[in-house]
């Protein structure tokens, strides 16, 4: 009994004796916090755009916001930028196309075998036909570009803009919103 009485203060001495002991408790709490938070923080998804080896040079290549400038292009004649293909579709329209690379990486999403990528225009582009891969894009809703994109590798998707001959000449611009979700 006597010994038990002596034992008890030891515990309290340990907790109240030094700052170091308080820090020890704090450290233990930190460990627990770390173990608890790590899985959630680790499960993440990252998206970057980059210039394709045979495509147009992107401004901001390798980041999550990129831009491409086709310059002044005509259906007949004019200069087409490197990496851009121009094709004339009979007497109805003409098309500019170029591949761009998209890379999606995952961390800690073990059960996600692939990803879904959709795309949507930020503003209306009804006079023209916008495509990314096989998906025709509008500003109304996201169109599915791929339902099973592979993680890790740069996947090339062909961006194309088709301009009807009936459209009047002028500047064409828009922003593509590329949306990626883990499957």
């Amino acid at each position, binding site marked *: 009994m006597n010994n038990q009485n002596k034992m008890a203060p030891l515990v309290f001495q340990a907790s109240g004796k030094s700052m170091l002991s308080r820090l020890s408790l704090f450290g233990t709490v930190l460990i627990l916090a770390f173990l608890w938070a790590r899985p959630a923080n680790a499960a993440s998804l990252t998206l970057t755009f980059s210039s394709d080896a045979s495509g147009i040079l992107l401004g901001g290549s390798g980041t999550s916001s990129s831009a491409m400038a086709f310059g002044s292009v005509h259906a007949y004649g004019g200069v087409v930028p490197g990496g851009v293909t121009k094709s004339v579709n009979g007497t109805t329209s003409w098309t500019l196309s170029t591949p761009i690379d998209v890379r999606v990486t995952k961390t800690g999403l073990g059960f996600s075998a692939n990803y879904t990528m959709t795309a949507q225009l930020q503003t209306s582009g009804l006079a023209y036909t916008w495509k990314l891969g096989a998906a025709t894009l509008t500003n109304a809703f996201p169109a599915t570009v791929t339902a099973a994109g592979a993680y890790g590798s740069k996947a090339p998707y062909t961006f194309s803009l088709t301009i009807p001959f009936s459209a009047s000449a002028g500047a064409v611009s*828009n922003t*593509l919103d590329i949306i990626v979700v883990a499957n």
Partner: protein
Amino acid sequence: MKTNKTNFTKLNARAGLGWIRQSSCLLLVWALIALATAAAPPLFAAGQTGAAQLDAPPEEAPAPSLTISPGVIMVQAQPEQSTTQDISISNLTPVEFTFNLEAMDVAVRDGKRVFVPAGEMPGSIARTAVFSPSSVVVPPGSSATVQVTVTIPENPAMRAIVAIFRSNTKVRSQSGFAMTASLGALMTFNLSKSLQIEGSALQFDGASQGSDLAVSEWVTNTGNEPVIPKGVVAILSSTGKLVGKVAVEAMRLLPGERLQFKAEYPSALQSGKYRALMTLEHDGTVLTTSSDFEIP
């Protein structure tokens, strides 16, 4: 004797407490290192092996990209219950991003997922999503966390939504086209124990060309809840002896969804007759499909 025993206990207790104190100090140091590691960007993506780590060139700096975390949230709930989840987006690019938060239902049509605007389908879960805040501006090098609260309707028509950080960023471009990234977190909801998958006949690719054999099976989720089957393909000889086995990658199947589960046998098989067994397991349930094949 009793005293000795007590003293021994006391000494042990003192020694034990000393050990705890010392260990706690070590644990503190370890915790600080661990926290520093946790704050640092991950060195390798999931799926990369230790060998790849050794063989890889010096580590590149993290890409100036957007990252959403978590990418997938799996919720166990009941109809008419609410759940609140935190979703964060990190901006490691040199550009300021503006995001509007938006939820869409994930429906399955003809075995494939489609994103449906909130409220368009009866029993929409996405329609109940409330984001706080509903938009965020994320400067370069910063991150933002948003809370999304979802209330499961009485009869939800689907079991998944996506919570999307929709980029409203105006990318500077000289008369041309810009691309901006949006990222979404998939949220799945398990509301009952109605879990069921159905398989189909095994398919064999590459068996006749002498190249690596690929064994696959189309699997449909015929239950009411999301499942994540995973499994193994075993190759047996004509005498029933195990020739080899290879893992089948786990994939998420939403109700009604149909996906091809596939395993590639990593070496060429000798000529002969074989049997393949694909075994998929989820939530304690096993689905096994077998088929004979021949390597000419």
